[in-house]
């Protein structure tokens, strides 16, 4: 269970990205976070694994205070939280297999990984995870030779190496076309259903949210303005979250 209490982030330039945000997410839930750009969605995800250091508030993962963890403990916690990104963030010049193996960096010995030597069972596990996302045949290719959708699947395989309890997905399909978006979202959904991994996913498109989410959190100006059933979001509700401009655009 993930508990977020009074989470606030103020950036050094004075931007208040998150303001007193509290939410509790039970294990295994597929949560979609929606909101305008700048509403604090990305900051919210990054505060959970402390890629962004919260200004105040606490994040409890299964009762443990992530915000109070020292640097060693923080790395252990991070190794249990998978994360995928809008720009995939693969190591472009390395092979697909190496990219997947980096998911195991939090749990493998430091010396071997620095010279590029990986335990045999980790390599096997990496191949199995690539198999799961359907691109095992690309294992030896350079990551940047893959299409966007394939790269995001590599990123998913990388998080699977972590055997995560929680998957954070920061606009995972915002750089992809609609068909590819669904393909990637289905893999995320599969991980959520088969492995029981909690998913917190930022999305721009409401149609995707309706299709995949069990629960929708709406952010506006860094505050939680809606905790909704995805099928209950009608136009009126939508206007509340996004404002008049966006509604007009959606109609077009």
């Amino acid at each position: 269970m993930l508990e977020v209490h009074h989470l606030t982030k103020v950036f050094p330039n004075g931007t208040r990205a998150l303001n007193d945000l509290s939410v509790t997410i039970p294990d295994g839930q597929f949560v979609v976070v929606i909101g305008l750009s700048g509403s604090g969605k990305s900051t919210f995800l990054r505060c959970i694994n402390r890629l962004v250091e919260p200004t105040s508030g606490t994040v409890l993962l299964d009762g443990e205070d992530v915000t109070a963890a020292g640097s060693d403990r923080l790395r252990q916690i991070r190794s249990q939280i998978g994360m995928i990104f809008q720009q995939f963030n693969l190591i472009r010049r390395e092979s697909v297999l190496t990219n997947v193996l980096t998911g195991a960096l939090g749990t493998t010995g430091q010396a071997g990984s620095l010279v590029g030597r990986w335990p045999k069972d980790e390599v096997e596990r990496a191949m199995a995870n690539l198999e799961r996302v359907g691109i095992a045949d690309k294992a030896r290719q350079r990551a940047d030779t893959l299409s966007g959708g394939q790269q995001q699947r590599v990123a998913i395989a990388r998080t699977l190496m972590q055997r995560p309890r929680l998957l954070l997905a920061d606009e995972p399909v915002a750089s992809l076309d609609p068909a590819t978006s669904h393909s990637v979202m289905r893999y995320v959904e599969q991980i959520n259903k088969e492995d029981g991994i909690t998913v917190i996913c930022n999305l721009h498109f409401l149609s995707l949210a309706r299709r995949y989410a069990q629960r929708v959190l709406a952010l506006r100006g860094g505050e939680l303005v809606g905790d909704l059933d995805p099928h209950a979001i009608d136009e009126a509700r939508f206007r509340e979250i996004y404002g008049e401009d966006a509604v007009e655009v959606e109609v077009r």
Partner: protein
Amino acid sequence: MAQAEARPLRRPTPPPSIELPSSDARRWRLIAVLVALLAAHVVGWRITNINLPALFFGLPNMQHIVASLLRPDAFELAKDVVVAEGLVTVVAPGTPSTGSRRVEEPGGPVLVITPRDVAPGQPLYVQGTGWPAGKEAEAFLVRSAGARPNSAGKFKVEPDGTINYAFVVPEWAPNTYGITVSVTTPAFGITPTQTLTLCLRLMVETLFLALMGTSLALIFTLPLSFLGARNLMGGSRLGRAVYYATRVAFNLLRSIEVVIVVTIMAVVVGIGSFAGVLAIVVHSIGALGKLYSEAIESIDPGPIEAIAATGARPLQVVRYAVIPQVVPLFLSFTLYRLDINVRMSTIVGLVGGGGIGFILTQYINLLQWNQAGTAIWLIAIVVTAIDYLSAWLREKLV
């Protein structure tokens, strides 16, 4: 609304309003800047003593230099040389002369020097057999190994291949000296001159000077450049202090001209290539360090986030998220630096750093313009070649 159509759920942001100054104000500002620039150049013309007539009337002085430079001492017609070398001992006047000395090389001519001990002013005979019949021969006295031989006169080889020549021994101090007799005949083809051979050897030395300077600089620069990258060091107060210290050090090293560093290093380790290598190392650490650090700062932060999010340690983040991104840039910058260092190596020689620049200054000081031309042409050719090679390689890399 066109923007909003492309990205449905983003609220269009109004363009920031920037107050532009009126067109009149801008025009006056432009005129003021142009007037200031003009004034600076008028003052500059006087301060730097620009004197066009001097250039015009002085140009003819350059004529013979340019003519010599255009005829570098690089190749000559090939020649066959038959040579024999012997020794003679010059003794104090009044000492009786004794015997003779016979020199014979297997397959070569025979040279007989009579007498073996001779007083200045007395005749010395060079005789022998097996010389190229009818050709012109020349005898030389050599003060010491490596010294320029003094001609003792030319004579003709007899039709049967014998030589028989005598000359008067000069007033040299008693000692043992070399005697050389040689017959030079033109042969087919051209060969490099001694100057070219020497310049080539020193050019190779120069290339190695650049290579060693660059590589030794790398050893220091590679780790230091990570300390000089703001995106890696900006996290803590200590990190920022290290970042600024590293950057200041880079800038200091870079701003000191190589020529000055060579002069200092020549005092420390003596004139020669090593002083040149050290100077290039010092300068390259600064120059490469800045480039490397900026390369690290320019990398995509995405992979760093992604690798950090897996729970990796800082060294692992550097290994997997930073190094793969910077390696092509580092290689490219290093090749570029090697290219610059080859050019610099020719300069460091001018001030005692060894290599081809060293011999070039000697030629210029002795007004040996043909020889200087050889060195200058060689530098131009090699530097241009390295320039193209490095550009081609860099294109392949990035």
